[in-house]
């Protein structure tokens, strides 16, 4: 990317109270594609912004199906660049040197030419196209979600001179759980934060990482908590009925199986729990790079009868599991926000979360432990299973609390930030 270009700061915003604001947004994934919470957050925030009259131009790295009313641009569009159709999802949770297969063109017979690229190469490609888009589109402010879009945001800022907001949904520190932070990703984060007019994090927990590890000035970092929906959910056909009939209690883990998510601590706590109460069954729902290791750990701990692997569950299957569970555990070592306990609450299931999570800052009605305190995690799991009143109350009051965590509030906070940056430019 052309990092040497000087910033054009003589921009006078066209914005007034009457005219609507236009935001050029860069994201990496978007529903209905099934990835992590990032796509959901982008969609919900966009939806609320549109309702408030903000125009959103949403740029995605490759052509995909989308939902909602934003105007979508795809960075692999023939109009903008010659080739490039990715045939797999570009998961932002991958390490920087993970490779993905990308269609780079077509041969004379029309067959796709597939090359391996690293995700960082893809991020750079995205940035290159972002600069082209930024020169052709009209907009007031740039908003880039997650590290794979930071370079695109920075490129768009350099190309257009418009203010840039980087939205941190996760950091390299979270994904590495503090160890072996990917230096290439860290470099992109740190340099991009330095270029941003504002950095938005989804929790104080993440703000602390961005300030302490990436040395972003604290006054430049704003916390905008994710929202959620408190939908009344239908009672689905029960799952695990046989286990329940046998009087087993179900403790659920749902999420990726990676070092960040602390599943290994969860299994150690399971050992402590089963020592006291052999009638507890732990369901691990999800997949990831630590799956084999966790399966081996379960075997070594002689927990095969008490820990079941359900694979990655989505939609109704996942919801049925939420409804079957007596308790949901989110054992994350480092979780910028963590929507899973809120999803569980929608299905009437209470949660134990780690204090190393953003959701712990906004959800009062959950059990909270330090991720490393396996004994206390086991104690709270056992206690909550023994004393059902505590689970009932966390569900009743937690659901009440969720009603105040709307995406509308998040969108309003974002608009305030947009405006504050525009005022800065015009003055």
């Amino acid at each position, binding site marked *: 990317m052309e990092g040497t270009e000087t910033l054009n700061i003589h921009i006078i915003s066209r914005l007034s109270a009457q005219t609507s604001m236009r935001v050029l947004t860069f994201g990496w994934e978007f529903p209905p594609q099934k990835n992590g919470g990032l796509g959901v957050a982008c969609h919900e925030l966009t939806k609320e912004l549109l309702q408030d009259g903000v125009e959103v131009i949403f740029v995605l790295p490759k052509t995909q199906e989308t939902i909602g009313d934003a105007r979508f641009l795809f960075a692999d569009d023939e109009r903008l660049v010659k080739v490039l159709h990715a045939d797999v999802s570009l998961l932002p949770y991958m390490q920087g040197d993970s490779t993905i297969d990308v269609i780079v063109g077509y041969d004379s017979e029309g067959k796709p030419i597939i090359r391996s690229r690293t995700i960082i190469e893809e991020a750079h490609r995205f940035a290159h196209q972002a600069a082209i888009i930024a020169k052709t589109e009209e907009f007031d402010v740039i908003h880039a979600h997650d590290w794979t879009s930071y370079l695109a945001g920075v490129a768009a800022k350099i190309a257009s001179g418009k203010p840039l907001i980087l939205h941190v949904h996760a950091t390299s520190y979270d994904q590495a759980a503090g160890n072996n932070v990917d230096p290439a990703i860290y470099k992109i984060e740190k340099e991009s934060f330095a270029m941003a007019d504002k950095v938005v994090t989804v929790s104080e927990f993440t703000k602390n990482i961005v300030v302490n590890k990436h040395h972003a000035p604290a006054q430049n970092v704003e916390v905008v908590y994710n929202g959620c929906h408190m939908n009344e959910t239908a009672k689905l056909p029960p799952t695990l009925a046989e286990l329940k009939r046998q009087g087993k209690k179900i403790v659920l883990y749902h999420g990726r199986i990676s070092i960040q998510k602390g599943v290994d601590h969860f299994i150690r706590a399971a050992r*402590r729990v089963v*020592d*006291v*109460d*052999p*009638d507890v069954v732990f369901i691990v729902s999800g997949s990831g790079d630590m799956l084999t290791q966790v399966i081996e750990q379960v075997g070594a701990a002689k927990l095969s009868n008490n820990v079941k692997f359900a694979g990655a569950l989505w939609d109704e299957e996942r919801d049925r599991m939420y409804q079957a569970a007596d308790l949901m555990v989110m054992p994350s070592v480092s979780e910028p926000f963590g929507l899973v306990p809120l999803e569980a609450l929608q299905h009437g299931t209470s949660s134990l979360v780690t204090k190393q999570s953003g959701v712990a800052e906004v959800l*009062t*009605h*959950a*059990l*909270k432990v330090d991720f490393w305190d396996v*004994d*206390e995690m*086991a*104690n*709270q799991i*056992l*206690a*909550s299973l*023994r*004393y059902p*009143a*505590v689970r*009932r*109350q*966390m569900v*009743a*009051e937690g659901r009440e609390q969720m009603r105040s965590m709307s995406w509308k509030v998040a969108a309003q906070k974002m608009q305030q930030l947009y405006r504050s940056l525009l005022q800065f430019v015009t003055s």
Partner: protein
Amino acid sequence: MLTVCPYFHVHQPYRVKKYRVFDIGNDTEYFNDSSETDLNNRRIIEKVANKSYRPTNKILKELLDTHPEFRFNLSFSGTVLDQFEAYAPDVLESFQELVATGRVEILADTYHHSLAFFYSVPEFKRQVQKHERRIKQLFGVKPRVFRNTELSYRNDLAKWCEDNGYLGIMSEGWEKYLGWRSPNYVYRPAGCSKIKVLLKNYKLSDDIAFRFGNKEWVDYPLNADTYANWIHAHHGDGQTVNLFMDYESFGEHQWEDTGIFDFLRILPEMVLRHPDTGFKTATETVEAYEATGEYDVPDILTWADTDRDLTAWIGNDIQRDAIEATYKMEEMVMKTRKRDIIENWRKLQTSDHFYYMCTKWSNDGDVHAYFSPYQSPYEAYIAFMNALGDLQLRVSQVAMERELKQQASEINKKAEQTNYPDVTKPPDEKATHEAPEPQSTQEPEPEPRREGWWGKLINKVPFFKSPRQQRTSS
């Protein structure tokens, strides 16, 4: 004539340590936290003694010495007296010196600062009697005016107090029940004919207890001169101004840097400056004034929060679950006749445990969060229920041992017609206390936790019936 009736409530609970599920069956010490947190009861007593009890008692003693007209009331929970005795005997002595002047009255109370009246009147009565014995032993006086935990009050409580010989009882002066009437008179509880009720003037009381150090308050900073004028303003429309508050308002809730001690030091002089103003103890007040009307409180009234009810203690599911589980054990606990079991059970009745489980997070909730030593209401509940679970196990254990002994003695009787002593006769409290299980000096062996039966037993509490190796052998 206008008199002021100050009353300071002294209380500290035995906070339950972070008692885990794994401790059930292995640890009968629920209150011995020794960490650097606010769960460490000794540490709290030492801290509050330095911040509040010692400096405040010094000032109160000076005031009694300087002003022969000055008098006030104190109430103590038994749990705070026990902790003074153990951790700060000099504080206890300084209270004894105050009472020895004859101008400091001690009020009747429940020993364990409990809400027993609303759950079990027999247990309530036992706690009041135990409290009375303790006050007699430490201070040589017999309380004649009653105050209940958190100033909780209801018509039937007043009736109980009347039937048990008390001259007066204290309550909140709340508009819902007072209507247009003033709290600055003495009233007759509905359904009673002799006893009188003293009503807290919450406006003037809370000016000191809650608002004194609040910089946002329009009357901040409050000086004793102004405050005495507010009291004097009631000349002509009242007989007694009842200032009821936590003793710990002085130095602990309102820190020294708010000027609270200087305020206290000068207040009696300012009050007495007005010629027709004096101080009275609670008994003197109820004896001096006739009841001017009836105070009819059919539902529980307390001095807490904006609702003046018990919702901060029993307002949510976990609080009700915990308190109901506690009182459900009464019969089984009393049957054991084991002093340590009964005492542990009573310590768990202290209202503070349920207060820590409060989830009212509005304006009221902030106050609760400040006063809780736990990181969350759920943590408080879990520690409490685990401790209660262990107590249930001990109770079942005793019942089971009794049963086995009885069976054995019956078999013996049938087998041999000899004159063995009757072991089925229940031993008295003292005897069992002094003669605990015989091999108790031996260290119990580590619990064989990994066995399946163990987890199953744990989950069968409270009506645990199966034999348990550890406890029978230790």
